[in-house]
């Protein structure tokens, strides 16, 4: 089996088994379901044609990024009950920050066409850290401003910052090339698929990665993102089960009672809001690896605020597993219906179908609120475990 298929198989089998294991009621059934899920997905990828493997990788990458966003929103809404409608903005700011930290300042002729505030050419981890910091700072500002006031003022302020940042990014050329896309963002570990491969790689691994060419980069990225999602999930799981996580849930359930117990409600809310925004910013940094250029038009609130909300609410807000499962489930439905409508709908109705799907997503959100407010995987008592 060629290396590319092996990488995709590994990542997807782990993801598939993991998602299925969420439905286990005990540790044993979870392990069993994990094995079954991983085996099924693994066998599927093993026998799939080359074209199908390629076809699956791109949506899988998007699904993992959505899962990270959904988990980030879960910290804000699921745990603490903070209504953030500016997810796309935190995501976008993370993406632009990371892009400019990792790419060099354009030189020569390119400098005439590509304007950016700075370009440090630092390695990718620096981009992730920078993205998280800047998203966190913006969240800190909004949180300090609104979290003392009525709870829906936060929502209004997040719409405000999202729309304002959109206007700034689209009109200020010096900041990040304005309405033009910002090209040439380096991809992490891209050297693995180059010839000759990364200089730091030990000899036997060089041979191992030698057959990959630049078209196979997505397989590497999928593995990288899967690891990132698992790491974020495990770290946040620690947070959820920490005393601090319990305070957040207490605030969500009854703010006054939490305050009576001597908890600083305002400060905890701000911390939770900032933490969630950091995760979203980090997702933005990871997103830059999956595209060659970014412009603010990519970060439309329809795709990156609203869809994430539906994912979290469908999966089960308050439950990290639900957040991840919802992201994959809704994304599967979303791309599945794209595929179906491409195949079935006559050409002249193509644009209408696009909006019909968005409308149905709006309807789905309301239906979840009305009929299944706790989602597919409801929050477990005591936060699970």
């Amino acid at each position, binding site marked *: 089996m060629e290396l590319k298929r092996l990488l995709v198989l590994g990542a997807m089998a782990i993801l598939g088994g993991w998602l299925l294991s969420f439905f286990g009621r005990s540790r044993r059934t979870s392990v069993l379901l994990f094995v079954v899920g991983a085996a099924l997905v693994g066998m599927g990828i093993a026998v799939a044609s080359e074209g199908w493997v390629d076809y699956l990788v791109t949506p899988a990458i998007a699904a993992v990024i959505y899962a990270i966003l959904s988990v980030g929103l879960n910290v804000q809404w699921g745990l603490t*009950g903070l*209504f953030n*409608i500016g997810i796309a903005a935190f995501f976008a700011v993370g993406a632009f920050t990371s892009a400019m930290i990792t790419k060099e300042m354009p030189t020569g002729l390119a400098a005439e066409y590509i304007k950016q505030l700075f370009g440090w050419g630092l390695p990718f981890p620096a981009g992730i850290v920078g993205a998280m910091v800047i998203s966190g700072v913006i969240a800190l500002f909004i949180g300090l*401003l*609104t979290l003392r*006031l*009525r*709870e*829906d*003022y936060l*929502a*209004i*302020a997040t*719409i*405000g*910052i999202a*729309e*304002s940042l959109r*206007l*700034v990014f*689209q*009109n200020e050329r010096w900041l990040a090339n304005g309405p033009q896309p910002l090209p040439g963002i380096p991809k992490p570990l891209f050297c693995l698929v180059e010839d000759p491969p990364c200089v730091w790689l030990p000899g036997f691994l060089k041979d191992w990665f030698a057959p990959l060419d630049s078209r196979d980069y997505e397989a590497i990225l999928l593995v990288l993102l899967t690891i990132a999602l698992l790491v974020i999930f495990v770290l946040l799981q620690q947070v959820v089960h920490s005393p601090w996580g319990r305070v957040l849930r207490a605030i969500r359930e009854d703010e006054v009672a939490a305050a009576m117990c001597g908890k600083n409600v305002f400060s905890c809310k701000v911390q939770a809001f900032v933490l969630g925004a950091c995760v979203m910013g980090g997702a933005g940094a990871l997103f830059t690896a999956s595209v060659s250029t970014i412009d603010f038009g990519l970060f439309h609130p*329809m795709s990156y605020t*609203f869809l994430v*909300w539906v994912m979290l*609410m469908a999966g089960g807000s308050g439950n990290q597993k639900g957040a991840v499962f919802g992201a994959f489930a809704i994304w599967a439905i979303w791309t599945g219906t794209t595929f179906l409508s491409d195949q079935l709908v006559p050409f002249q109705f193509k*644009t*209408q179908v696009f*909006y*019909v799907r*968005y*409308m149905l*997503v*709006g*309807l789905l*959100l*309301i239906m979840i*609120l*009305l009929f299944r*407010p706790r989602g597919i995987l409801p929050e477990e008592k005591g936060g699970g475990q």
Partner: protein
Amino acid sequence: MLELIVYGIIYGSIIALGAIGVTLIYGILRFANFAHGDLMSLGAYMALFLIQVLFPMLGVPQERFGGTSFGWPLILALPLAAAGTALVAIALDQFFYRPLRVRRASPVILAMASLGAAFIVRNLIYIFWGPDKINYFPGLVRPAWQLPFEVRLRPDELIIFGVALVLVVSLYLFLQKTKLGKAMRATADNPDLARITGINTEWVRIWTWIIGAGLAAIAGILYGVNALLYPEMGWGFLLPLFAAAILGTVGNPYGALVGGLIIGIVQRFSTLWLNPAYQPAVAFLVLIVVLLVRPQGLFGGRS
């Protein structure tokens, strides 16, 4: 300078019509209606349907008054589109918000449902009318009058202000003089106390939607007359609407009127220094200042 004030007042009166609905719904139904901007778009597009499809079919006379867009088509479209939008808002309330209310869902959940409703409405507009920018009367020349003090004004803009003024005065009379208006103000003030005194709060809620959505529809149409229609127009109004409602103290319709005019004037004035594209961001800036300095708004007694 004076010209910017005049433009600001005209634009502000459109914001005010929307903000009055936001603040009434906020005060009486107790949640932030994020679909309000999209109700504005819906009203504007309903009028478009009436003006460009239905009225020509029915043979409504097309003559207009002088150099304005206003003639029978637009005058008939205003109340009809307002009624249509109000019906949609009541339907949204009955199917979506009311079940949540009965379940005593928190205001944030209702706000989230309104976000879903906003998506439904906006995408319905996309489905039926497409994403293009549309003019009510394509090809119509509308010359501006040259008034004293270097103010240029199109007759349309004067009528827009007139319509807004008439509506606000009628709303004032309605809220102050009629029994229903008084019940609405009482419910906004204290819903529990209102129920105890025998006010039918469910009826009050329906009327809140009729007034809020009707005014939103007319605001959307007036904006369309002044500029262009596009499906995201209402979403762009959301920040000015909420900034105006919060500036004028949530629940206070007269405050929303003042807030709308202030936001409108500040937005138009900002074009002296700023790229006009930043006007929604200016509304957000005003909102930040209000939240920092006086979060209870201009007319709020306590925070």
